[in-house]
C-alpha cells in the first residue's frame, strides 16, 4: 500500500507544517514515510508544493504528475496549478482561499474566487471545496486553515486514527496553538465527513 498526497499552498500558509504532521502521524502508525518539498528562494509567498508518500515501505520524497491519490490545496490558484498531479481516481480537497499571484491580479483584476472554484471543479469533478477560512476563523485562528484541511483529508481518506493525528499535532505544533489546531482538525473532519458520502456515492 502506498498513499500519495500532494499539498499545494502559498508559502507561509502552513503547507510544510501539514506535511510534517502527516509524517509524524505515519511514523506513529508504524508506517514508512517520505516527504519532500518544492519551494522557491523566498521565505514566504511563493508557490509551495509538498509531497507526502506513506506506505509499508516507501523510498522517494517526490512523485510525478498523475500519481497523487489526494491533492490538498490550501489555496485555489495553487490547486489549479497542480491539479494534473492527481491520478484518474484521485480526489482534490481544496480550501476556498483565493490569493491570486501578482501577474494574475494585474492582468485579470476582475477575476473572483467563485471563478477559480468553478474552474477547478471543471478541471476535476472529484473536487471537494472546503470553506476552510470560515471554519478556522470560527475557532479564532485564521492560520489554522492547514489543520482544517488535515481534518478534511483524514475524513475522506481514513489514513490515520484520530488518536495518532492528535498525537502528531501535539508533537509538531507549538504548545500555544495545539488546542485550536486540534479543534480545527475536528471541524475540517466533520465538515468533509458530512458531505463525503453524498459526494463520493
Amino acid at each position, binding site marked *: 500500500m502506498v498513499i500519495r498526497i500532494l499539498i499545494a499552498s502559498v508559502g507561509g500558509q502552513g503547507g510544510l507544517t501539514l506535511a510534517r504532521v502527516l509524517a509524524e502521524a505515519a511514523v506513529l502508525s508504524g508506517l514508512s514515510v517520505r516527504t519532500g518539498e518544492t519551494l522557491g528562494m523566498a521565505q514566504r509567498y511563493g508557490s509551495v508544493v509538498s509531497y507526502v508518500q506513506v506506505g509499508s515501505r516507501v523510498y522517494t520524497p517526490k512523485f510525478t504528475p498523475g500519481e497523487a491519490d489526494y491533492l490538498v490545496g490550501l489555496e485555489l490558484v495553487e490547486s489549479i496549478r497542480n491539479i494534473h498531479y492527481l491520478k484518474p481516481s484521485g480526489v482534490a480537497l481544496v480550501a476556498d482561499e483565493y490569493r491570486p*499571484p501578482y501577474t*494574475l491580479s494585474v492582468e485579470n483584476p476582475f477575476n473572483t474566487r467563485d471563478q477559480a472554484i468553478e474552474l477547478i471543479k471543471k478541471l476535476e469533478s472529484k473536487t471537494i471545496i472546503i470553506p476552510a477560512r470560515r471554519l478556522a476563523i470560527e475557532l479564532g485562528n485564521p492560520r489554522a486553515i492547514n489543520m482544517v484541511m488535515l481534518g478534511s483529508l483524514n475524513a475522506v481518506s481514513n489514513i490515520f486514527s484520530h488518536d495518532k493525528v492528535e498525537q502528531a499535532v501535539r508533537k*509538531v505544533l507549538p504548545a500555544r496553538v495545539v488546542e485550536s489546531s486540534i479543534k480545527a482538525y475536528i471541524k475540517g473532519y466533520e465538515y468533509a465527513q458530512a458531505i463525503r458520502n453524498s459526494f463520493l456515492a
Partner: protein
Amino acid sequence: MEYYSLHVYTLPFARLVYLLVPQVFNMVFTPMSLLAEPGTRLPLMGNEAIARGVLEAGVYIVTGYPGTPSSEVIMTLQEYSRDLDIYVEWSVNERVALEVAIGAAISGARAMSTMKAPGLNVASDPLLSAAYSGVDGGLVVYVADDPGPHTTQTEQDSRWYGELAKLPLISPSSPQEAKDYVVASVELSEALGLPVLLRTTTRVSHTVGDVLLGEIKQPRKGRGFSKNPERFVRAGMDWNLERHKWLNSRLARVEELSAKLGLNKVIGAGELCIVTEGAALNYVLETVEEYSLSARVLKLGLLHPFPRGFILDNIRGCREILVVEELDPYIEQHLKTVLYDAGLFIPIRGKTTKHLPIEGELDKSIVLNALGLKQRDQPRSPHKTPRRPPPLCPGCPHRFTFLALKRAISKKGFKLSEVPVIGDIGCYALSVYKPIDMLWTEHSMGASVSMAMGLKLAGYDKPVVAVIGDSTLYHAGLQSLIEAVNKRVDLLVIVVDNGVVAMTGHQSTPAWSTSETGRILKPISLDELVKAVNPDELRIVDSYNYDELVGVFEEFIDKPGVKVVVSRHPCALLEARLKGVKTRYTVDVELCKGCKACLVVTGCPAIVMEGGRARIIQEDCNGCGLCTRFCPYNAIKQMG
C-alpha cells in the same frame, strides 16, 4: 558625516531576537526529540538526521555559514545547545568556518563544517591544504548540492571536489543514511587522518523520512597540539611533495576501509545493472519495485576514491548498465575508466548517451524513460496558471530602499535602463522580479561592490549602484569595499541592513550580542567597520524613512568617490514574529477605483485584486503602510 547610532537598532534587536529565540525556532521548526533514546524511530528531515549524527559521532565543534539546503543541521543543534556540551555556532563565512574546524581537528577534536555548494567554493582554499596536513580528530565537511536548482545559483556538482581536493567523499541516499554517514565519515576520517566530504542533495537534506536512532557518544574535545612543521607548514616545497605522496598513500586505503562501513551495496539480481547513488537510488528502487523489474542495483555510498574493487566484484555478468545519477556524469565517467582498465566491454547508458538529462533534477518518470518504460497512468497536461515568483515579504524594508532608489534615479533625470544596480546574495535579490524590477546582476557572495567597480573602471559613464546586505558584507563584501575605496572609483554602495541572515531562516550575524546558543558575543559594529574603510560619504538611514532615502540617493548618486548608504530596518517578517503586528491596513471598497496602483508599484504579496477591487489579506499585512503612499484615492486605511 552623520551617523545613526548603532544602538538604535542592531543591539537591542539582537538581544530581543536572542531572548525570544526559542519561540522563533518553534515556529520555524517542528520540535522533535533530538536527544531521544537509541532504538527510537522518528520522522526526521535529512538535516535534522545529520544533526543527530553529529551527536552519535561525538563531534565537538560544529561551524558553518547558512545556505539552503544545508542550514538546518546547525539550527537544529542550536535548539538543543543548552543540553549539549558542544560548540555549535555560525561563522562569518564558510572559509572561516572550515578553518576553525580544521584548527580543532588537528588537535584531535572531532569537528564538522556545514555549507551549501557555493560555500564549498569559498572554503576550497583551506580544504585543499587540509588534505596535505591531515587531521587527528575526525573532520567532516558537509556540503549540500541542489539539483533543480531550487535555491542555488548553479547546479554545481560538488562530487568533483573529492577529486580536486583528493579527499574521500561519501553520499547518502536517505535521512537514515544521512545520519549514519556522519558516524561513518568520522570513523573514516580518523582511520585515514584525512578530512571527509559528506555530500548530499536537496532531496536528501530536505526530505523527511523515518529514522532509527543510534547511541549518542561523548563529544571528543582537543587533546593538545605538537609542533610539526613538515606536516603543517605548506611553505616547505620538499615537505609539500612528501605530503602529496602521503596523501596518495592514504587514499589508496579508502576503499578497503569503507567496505567495512558498508557504504556500497548490491540490491537485487539480474543482467540489467543499474549503478546509482544519493537521492537517485530512491527513484530507481521505487521503479524496480513498482514495475517488478529484475535488475541488479549497485548503490554507491563512496564516490571518491571511486570504488573500483566493489564495481569489479559486482559488475560481471551484466548485459548492460544504466547509470542513474544527478548533475554531472560523474559515476558514468569513472565507471567507463574502470571497465576499460579491466578489459570489460559492457554498454553503458547514461547522460553522455542522452538516456538521462544533464540539467535539472531527476524523477521517476525520467528513470522510467531511461529504462524504455512508460508510466502506467498517463498524466493530464497541466492547466496553464500564472507564475508566482518569490516576492519581498509584506513590510520588507528592502522594498522601501528599492522604490526610493527608483524614484531618486528618475528625479535626477537618469533612465532606469541606464543605471545598473549590481546586486548581491540575499532577500534583496528578489527585487529582480516585477514590479520592483531593479536588480541587474546577482553572482556570488560579496561580488556587488567589486563587479560594480569593474564596470566603472571599464568606462561605464553613467552612475553605478551596488546593493549588499549586512551579512553578505561581513561574509565577503568588506574586501570589495576596501578595494573600491582604495582605488577611488565612483560608486553608490547601498548596504541594506536588516540585522539578520534573513533569507535562509533568520540566523545570527556578527552584529549580535548573544548567539542562538546563548553564547555572549562581542558585537562587531557594521557602521564602525564601514567607517574604518573610510568611504568618501557615509549616511545611515532608517529604511522606513522613504523620503530621506530618496533625498540621500539623489544627493549621492552622481557625486565622485565611494558613497555608502546604510539603509537599516529590522526584517519585517522576524519583527512580526517576535513582537506581533501593531497596526494593519485595509482597503475601503467604497473608495477603491481598482486602479491597481498600490499593487503595481509595491508588488506587496498581501495585496490582491479580486472582482476589480484591491484587497489586503489581513493576516499577511505587516503594517508598513508603504502602499498608502501610492493610492491616488486614499482608499487604504489604517486599522486600529
